C-alpha cells in the first residue's frame, strides 16, 4: 500500500523525521519496505499483512500512528444528511442472499457533471498508484484509499426498473465486466442485478453496461459488506483480483459503508455538483454483533513472559479502539472494533498488547530442557554415504525434483509405476516429479561439459516419485552416481587412464563395504533400457534388485550430445538402508601364515570370471580364504575364442601351518575342476 506523507498529514500529526516513522511503524508490524518520492513528497511503501485489511487505507494507517504516538485522529468531512424530504427518484434494494451480503447501502445522486477531477485529487490518486479516470470514479477510488471501504458507482439511467437485487448467479450465467471480458459464472458467485440482469460481480468488478461515462447524469452509489470467503472464492475462480476484492476477501469493516458513502456524497457534491435524488437505503437485515473476547492479564503475562500493569493493558486496547470492560481483577471482556476483522481469540488481543509493549522489550529466556534430542533415521546412513563418496572424489549435487516428458521417455520407471504428474506445472518440461535421479545428473554433466569440465564425478541423494500400480504415490530416497572423463591430470605425476565401467563398479562396491552392507552382489543385468547392453549390472541385496549401474546407452549419449561415455548408477537407498551397518563381531587374527598360489588359465570367452569364481568357491575348500583376479589377457597371444586369466588363490588354515602337499592338493583339485567343467587349459 502506497501512503503519501502529504496526504497522511490530513488525518494525524507525524514526527518530523520520516526515518523515525519508518522505524516505528516497522517495529509495530507495518513494514515500510521503502520510501520513494512522488511529486516532491515522500511516499511510504507499506507491506500490509493478510490479517490487517484495516490498514489498507490512509485512515487505517493514521489510526495506528495515532495509537503509537498517543496522538489524535482528525475527523474527515462527511455529508451531513443522506436523505431529503420528498425523494425525487424512487429506487429499491433487495438482498436475496444475506449470507453472502449481510449489508448493502445505496444512495442516488443526480445532476452530476462528469469531468476530470481537480489536480490535487488526481495527484493524490497517482501518488498511491491509481490512474485518474473521471471525477465520479476518482472519488470512489479516493474514498476507497482514504477509509478503506470499496464503493461502486452505477450510471442509474442504465439500471433497469431502478432496482438493485443482490443474489447468487445462475450456473453458467454470463456477463461482461468493466474490463470488457465476458465472465462465465457459477451458482456460488454473488451478483448485483438490476431489474433485468447482472450489473456487477459483487465486491469484485462492475459491469460494462452501467459504467459511468461523460453523459452520466444520475449515479447510484453502492457500498456494501460482503462475506470474505465468498469474495475470495469468486475472485480465485475467475482469476480476477481488484482493489475491492483484495479488501473484501481479507475482511472489510461492516460498519464502514455508511461512513464511506457519506464521505463520497460530500465529495461528489463539491466536485461533481451532485444532489441527493434518492435517499440513502441501508439494507442490513441482521446486524452483525461485535466480537467480544475474554482477556486474562495473567494469561497475557505467561504467554509473553513479561510483567504488565493492568493499566497498560487497558490503555493500549483503548488506544486501538477496543472496549475493555473489567470482569474482576486482571480480567476483561473486550469488545473489538468492527474494522478489526482479525480478532477472534485471546491470543489476538495478546499480540496487540505485545506489539505496543514492544517485542524488543521481552527478555530472552531458555525453556527447561525436559527432553533428549534424537537424529532422524536417515541421518546416519545418508551421512555415511556422503562421507564415503566424497572421500572417493565425488561432488554432491542437488537437483530440482521436476522432470519432463523426455526424461520420462528416456528413463522409464522400473516395476511398472506411472510418473507422478503435477496438475498445475510451471512449464512443460517440469510437469512431473522425477522418477529417477539420472536425468538430473546428466543435465549436470551437460552443463559442466559446456563449461569445458569433462572429467566429472558427481552424486545426489534425493527423493524419487511415482504412482504405483494402485495409483498411490510412492516417495523413495535414492542415490545416483555419475562418473565420466579420464583421470589424466595436468599434473607432473601423470595420473592417466579412462573412466570405465569398473571404476563405477569399484565405487559402488567400495561404498557398500564401507556401509557394512551384508549380502550384496553386483551381477549382470538384462533389461535396463537406458544403459548400454554390454555394460550394465544390477545391484542385488539378499537377492533383491536395489539398484543398477552401467554405461549410458550409446543412443542416449548421442541424443543428449554428450560426446563421451558416461557411467551412471542409481540405488534405492530407502530399501538399502535396512541392510546396512551389519554388527561387527571380532574374529581372532590368524596365527599361521597364509599361502598364495597363482593360477593362469585359458578358458572359452563365454565363461565369465564370475562363473569361474563361483565354481571354485563351490568346491567347498574351507582353507580357501580368497580369490583375486590378478590379470586378464585377450588378443593376439591368446588362441581365438579364448581368454587368459590369472587368479591368485590364498589358502589359510586357522588351526595350523599349511604343508606344501596340502596346498598342492587344493590347487590340483581346483585345476582339475576347471579343466573338466570349462575345458580350461593351463599355462
Amino acid at each position, binding site marked *: 500500500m502506497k501512503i503519501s506523507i502529504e496526504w497522511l498529514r490530513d488525518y494525524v500529526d507525524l514526527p518530523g523525521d520520516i526515518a523515525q516513522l519508518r522505524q516505528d511503524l516497522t*517495529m*509495530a*508490524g507495518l*513494514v515500510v519496505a*521503502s520510501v520513494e518520492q512522488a511529486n516532491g513528497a515522500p511516499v511510504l511503501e507499506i507491506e500490509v*499483512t493478510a*490479517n490487517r485489511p484495516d490498514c489498507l487505507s490512509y485512515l487505517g494507517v493514521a489510526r495506528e500512528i495515532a495509537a503509537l504516538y498517543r496522538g489524535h485522529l482528525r475527523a474527515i468531512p462527511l455529508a451531513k444528511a443522506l436523505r431529503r424530504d420528498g425523494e425525487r427518484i424512487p429506487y429499491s434494494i433487495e438482498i436475496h442472499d444475506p449470507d453472502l451480503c449481510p449489508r448493502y447501502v445505496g444512495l442516488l445522486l443526480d445532476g452530476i457533471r462528469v469531468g476530470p477531477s481537480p489536480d490535487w485529487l488526481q495527484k493524490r490518486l497517482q501518488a498511491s498508484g491509481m490512474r485518474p479516470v473521471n471525477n465520479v470514479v476518482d472519488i470512489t477510488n479516493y474514498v476507497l484509499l482514504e477509509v478503506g471501504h470499496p464503493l461502486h458507482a452505477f450510471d442509474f439511467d442504465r439500471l433497469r426498473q431502478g432496482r438493485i437485487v443482490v443474489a447468487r448467479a445462475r450456473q453458467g450465467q454470463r456477463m461482461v465486466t468493466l474490463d470488457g471480458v465476458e465472465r462465465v459464472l457459477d451458482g456460488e458467485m454473488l451478483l448485483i442485478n438490476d431489474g433485468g440482469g447482472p450489473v456487477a460481480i459483487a465486491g469484485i468488478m462492475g459491469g460494462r453496461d452501467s459504467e459511468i461515462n461523460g453523459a452520466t447524469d444520475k449515479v447510484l452509489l453502492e457500498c456494501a459488506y460482503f462475506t470474505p*470467503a465468498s469474495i*475470495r472464492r469468486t475472485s480465485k475462480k475467475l482469476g480476477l483480483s481488484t482493489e475491492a476484492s483484495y479488501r473484501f476477501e481479507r475482511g472489510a469493516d461492516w460498519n464502514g459503508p455508511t461512513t464511506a458513502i457519506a464521505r463520497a456524497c460530500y465529495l461528489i457534491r463539491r466536485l461533481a455538483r451532485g444532489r441527493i435524488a434518492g435517499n440513502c437505503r441501508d439494507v442490513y437485515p441482521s446486524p452483525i454483533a461485535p466480537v467480544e473476547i475474554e482477556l486474562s492479564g495473567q494469561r497475557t503475562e*505467561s*504467554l*509473553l*513472559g513479561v510483567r504488565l500493569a493492568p493499566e497498560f493493558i487497558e490503555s493500549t486496547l483503548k488506544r486501538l479502539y477496543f472496549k475493555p470492560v473489567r470482569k474482576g481483577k486482571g480480567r476483561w471482556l473486550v469488545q473489538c472494533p468492527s474494522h478489526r476483522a482479525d480478532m477472534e481469540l485471546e*491470543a489476538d488481543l*495478546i*499480540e496487540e498488547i*505485545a*506489539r505496543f509493549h514492544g*517485542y524488543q522489550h*521481552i527478555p*530472552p*529466556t531458555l*525453556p527447561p530442557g*525436559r527432553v533428549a534430542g*534424537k*537424529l*532422524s533415521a*536417515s*541421518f546416519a546412513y545418508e*551421512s555415511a554415504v*556422503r562421507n564415503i*563418496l*566424497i572421500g*572417493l572424489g*565425488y*561432488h*554432491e*549435487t*542437488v537437483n*530440482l525434483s*521436476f522432470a519432463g516428458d523426455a526424461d520420462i521417455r528416456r528413463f522409464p520407471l522400473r516395476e511398472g509405476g506411472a510418473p*507422478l504428474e*503435477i*496438475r498445475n506445472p*510451471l512449464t512443460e518440461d517440469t510437469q512431473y*516429479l522425477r522418477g529417477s535421479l539420472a536425468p538430473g545428473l546428466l543435465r549436470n554433466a551437460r*552443463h*559442466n561439459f559446456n563449461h569445458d*569440465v569433462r572429467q*566429472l*564425478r558427481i*552424486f545426489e541423494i*534425493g*527423493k524419487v*516419485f511415482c504412482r504405483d500400480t494402485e495409483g498411490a*504415490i510412492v*516417495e523413495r530416497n535414492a542415490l545416483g552416481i555419475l562418473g565420466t572423463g579420464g583421470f589424466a591430470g595436468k*599434473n*607432473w*605425476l601423470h595420473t592417466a587412464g579412462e573412466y570405465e565401467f569398473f571404476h563405477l563398479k569399484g565405487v559402488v562396491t567400495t561404498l557398500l563395504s564401507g556401509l557394512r552392507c551384508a549380502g550384496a552382489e553386483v551381477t549382470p543385468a538384462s533389461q535396463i533400457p537406458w544403459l548400454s547392453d554390454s555394460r550394465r549390472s544390477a545391484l542385488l541385496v539378499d537377492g533383491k534388485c536395489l539398484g543398477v549401474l552401467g554405461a549410458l546407452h550409446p543412443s542416449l549419449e548421442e541424443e543428449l550430445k554428450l560426446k563421451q561415455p558416461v557411467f551412471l548408477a542409481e540405488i534405492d537407498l530407502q530399501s538399502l538402508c535396512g541392510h546396512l551397518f551389519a554388527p561387527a563381531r571380532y574374529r581372532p587374527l590368524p596365527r599361521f601364515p597364509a599361502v598364495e598360489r597363482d593360477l593362469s588359465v585359458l578358458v572359452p570367452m563365454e565363461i565369465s570370471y564370475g562363473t569361474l569364481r563361483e565354481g571354485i568357491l563351490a568346491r567347498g575348500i574351507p582353507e580357501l580364504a580368497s580369490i583375486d583376479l590378478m590379470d586378464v589377457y585377450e588378443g593376439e597371444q591368446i588362441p581365438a575364442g579364448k581368454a587368459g586369466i590369472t587368479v591368485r588363490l590364498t589358502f589359510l588354515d586357522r588351526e595350523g601351518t599349511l604343508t606344501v602337499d596340502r596346498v598342492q592338493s587344493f590347487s590340483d583339485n581346483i585345476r582339475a575342476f576347471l579343466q573338466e567343467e570349462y575345458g580350461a587349459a593351463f599355462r
Partner: protein
Amino acid sequence: MSGSTEELRRGFEQDLAQIENLDAWKRIRDRWLARESGIITGQMKRLRELPKEERPAFGQSMNLLREFVEDRLGTTRAVMEREALEKSRRHIDVTRPGFPYALGTLHPITRLRQEIELIFVSLGFTVFDLPEVEQDYYNFEALNMPKNHPARDAQDTFYFDENLLLRTHCSSVQVHAMQSMKPPIRAVSTGKVYRRDPSDATHSPMFHQVDVLVVDEGITMGDLKGMLEVFLKRVFHPDIRMRLRPGFFPFVEPGAEVDISCIFCFGAGCRICKESGWIEILGAGMVHPKVLRMSGVDDTRYSGFAWGMGIDRVAILKHGVDDIRLFFENDVRFLKQF
C-alpha cells in the same frame, strides 16, 4: 701421568677427525685398539714398569680412555653407515606438489542442513523426516490455513489432486510432531519445499527450509527469543544481534518477523541490508491455539512456539552467493568452493 692420558686423548681425536671412509676408520681402530699393537694395549703393557702405588690410578685412566675411544669409534661408524645408505637414494625436490588425490565436496545446502540438525539435536530436539508430497491437511488445514485463506496466496502451490500437494514449507512438522508425541515436544524438520515461482536470481520453485516446534507447559515468547538467539548465534556468528517485530503467519499468534544484524556491514548499513543494518531471516511466533487444538493438544494447559527459516537464504548470506540457481545448476567449479 694424567697429562700423558690427556695427550693420548687429543691424539685420538685428531685421528678421528681425519676419518673419511670405512678403510680409514678400520686403520684408526687398529692403530688404537688392536689386541697386540694398539696404542692403548701398548700403554697397558707399561703398567708393570710403574711403581706399585701409581699402578691403580694409571690402570683406571687407561680403562677410561679405552671406553672413550670405543664409544667415539662406534658413533663415527654409525654415522658413516647412515650416510652410506642415504647415498643410494636419489635426491628429490620436495617443493613439488603432492599426489593429486581427488576429494569430493558436500553440497553447501547439505552442509548447512546437517549443521542445523546437529545444533537442534544438541538442544534436545527430535529430527523428523517428512514426505515432500504432503496432504493439504498437514500443509495448510491443520496450520490454520483453511481453503480460501488469503495467506495461501503467498504460497502458490503445486497440486497433484484436491488433497495432495508438494509441501510449501516444513511447518507440517508441527502437526506430525503433535500427532506422534506428547508434550514436552521439541521437534525440527529440514528439507525441500516447493512453490510455484518461476526461477530467477532470487526465486526457485524448489528450495529448502528448517521448521521448529516447541510445546510444553509455560512456554513464553521470551523462551522463543532465547532459543532463537542460541540458534542464530550458532548458525551465523556469536556476535550476531537479532530483533523481533510483529509479523503474520496464520499458524502463530502472536507472530513475529525475525531480523539479524547485517553480517556484511555489522549493522552499519550497506547494499545487502538496504541501508537498514538488519536482514530479515525467518518467521516465528507462539503456536496458534487453534493449531494446538486441531492436533489434540490442550491449549489451556500447554503453549508453544514455532519458527521457519529458508536454508538456501542462509547459504546465500553466509557464502555471498548472488544467484539461488547456482545451488541447483551443480557446476563443479561452484561446488568445489565449499
